[in-house]
């Protein structure tokens, strides 16, 4: 059985390509000090704004003479930390609200769904910007802001799932034998919504990483000297008439990363959808 499953996963191009990118990214983040050739924070005013390839700097240096490739590798850490933590926040808020709203229905459901409507009335970037404006810059605040913005997806999808699952026989049976609501929600219903949650979370990681880059690009996110891709890119734009590499490569890193998560998420969705059809 297991062998067949793995074969099916490997046949899905989206998962293979996306998964490889994500895996490489994670390895980069973990082994950043080993792979990188320079110190990400050490400035060298004799080697500022070198072009790619000059003086042993594969992607050149930034305005403080720091090795750009090293900065980008360390940037993967920032992106992943922000991505994973903010997705965790949205997931906990969204899944909890979705489970409660779907299970109890009625006024509770109406109340939470109106809140979802209110959140959906903001262009998401705008809400994140407003939140960071209120909280102030810095990595923790960026995580909180992004986490508080993207929970609505989980809430809506989980609620929808719960509405259909709670009518199933096994839930009714659990009710009949006197299981508590808490037990039914977390032991009977939650596991059955897992595949949707995983898909949303995977796609959400890409969205969160772009959001962090955007906030940092606007000067509202991660603060220097932390190696955020968005910030490096924004700062590089000041030198764009002399050399474009400072902005181009961090942008490329963002695209490849987000592409990886998007492909992986799409692939997992296809795989789980097929499963449903086979049932």
């Amino acid at each position: 059985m297991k062998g067949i499953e793995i074969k099916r996963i490997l046949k899905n191009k989206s998962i293979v390509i996306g998964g490889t990118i994500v895996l490489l990214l994670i390895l980069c983040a973990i082994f950043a000090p080993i792979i990188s050739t320079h110190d990400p924070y050490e400035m060298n005013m004799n080697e500022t704004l070198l072009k790619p390839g000059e003086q042993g700097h594969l992607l050149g240096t930034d305005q403080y003479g720091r090795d750009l490739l090293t900065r980008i590798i360390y940037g993967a850490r920032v992106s992943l930390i922000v991505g994973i933590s903010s997705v965790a926040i949205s997931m906990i808020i969204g899944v909890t609200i979705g489970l409660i709203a779907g299970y109890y229905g009625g006024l509770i459901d109406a109340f939470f769904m109106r809140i979802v409507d209110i959140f959906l009335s903001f262009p998401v970037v705008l809400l994140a910007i407003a939140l960071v404006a209120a909280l102030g810059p810095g990595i923790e605040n960026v995580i909180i802001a992004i986490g508080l913005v993207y929970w609505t997806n989980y809430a809506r999808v989980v609620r929808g799932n719960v509405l259909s699952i709670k009518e199933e026989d096994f839930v009714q049976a659990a009710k009949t034998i006197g299981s508590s609501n808490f037990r039914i929600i977390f032991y009977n219903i939650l596991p059955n919504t897992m595949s949707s949650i995983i898909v949303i979370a995977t796609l959400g990681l890409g969205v969160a990483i772009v959001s962090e880059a955007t906030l940092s690009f606007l000067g509202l996110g991660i603060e220097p000297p932390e190696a955020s891709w968005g910030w490096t890119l924004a700062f590089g734009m000041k030198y764009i008439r002399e050399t474009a590499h400072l902005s181009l490569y961090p942008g490329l890193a963002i695209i490849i990363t987000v592409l990886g998560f998007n492909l992986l998420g799409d692939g997992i969705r296809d795989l789980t959808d097929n499963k449903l059809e086979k049932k």
Partner: protein
Amino acid sequence: MKKIMNKLLQLILVLLGITILVFSLLYLIPGDPAVTLLGQDATQEEINRFKEQMGLNDSYIDQLTRYIGGVIQGDLGKSYIQNESVVDIVLSTLPATLELAIVALIIALLIAIPIGILSAVKRATWIDYLGMIFAQIGVSMPVFWLGLLLILGFSIHLNILPSFGRGGSVFEALIKTITTGNLYYIFESLKYLILPALTLGLMSAAFITRMVRAAMLEVLQMDYVRTADAKGVSDSMIIIKHAFRNALIPIVTIIGLQFGNLLGGAIVTETIFAWPGVGRLIITAISQRDFTVVQGGVLVIAFLFAVINLIVDLLYTLINPRIRS
């Protein structure tokens, strides 16, 4: 009719919610706005006078009800920094944002609809793969990076288009050109609009392409399409008359949602191209800590988006006879 009233009632609730959320967000800002704005050297007397003037000494509930009351009367308070009403400031920048978003949407549709239809019709051919690669990369690309590429190409290397600023309203320029017969006005205005609108439009096109393709694929599998095919109706007729018209329903909804994305993307795009719209206003106001303006800008954009969503919702009912009854 009853449905419309219901929707309107819901809209009012949502607008109220937005107002409370926006007000509370910026009320929670740590630190005293009076001290931040007047500087550390301000005397206690000056701070007190400022707070009295701005009503910052009242309780949260008092300030909130006063803010909501103001919003109902179209009053969003006064800017901390400029001696002007927030409504005037925001409304003076709104046309630039709307112009950018609308032109971007038109560009997006012009790109996305043909590619989406073609990808669906030629499913699993190289045309489809190319279209989907374009869409997948577009979706993954941060809007500011796309803007940067366009600036690099058109402003720096080719040096044919300006990379920042706005050449006056396109609408006004169009009227001037028509009345005077001089093309200079419209060119002068469009020159500045092209890069930001293209940036935003391409980003949006990537999303819409995927939606158009998915909607078309669904419709193409329908029995009535097969029937038309069996009857010998020509392919182009089937695609336009039978398939695309029915695929329009989900597409219109998505365009409505996409407009919110466009407004959000506009904030970033405006910052890159120094386009004098609401987005840039908000970002500048944040850096100046002019929070009444931030509040006002965010509120106006969110209201606009909520109203657009309602219109799309009603439009959806109009084009889909199955829901109308």
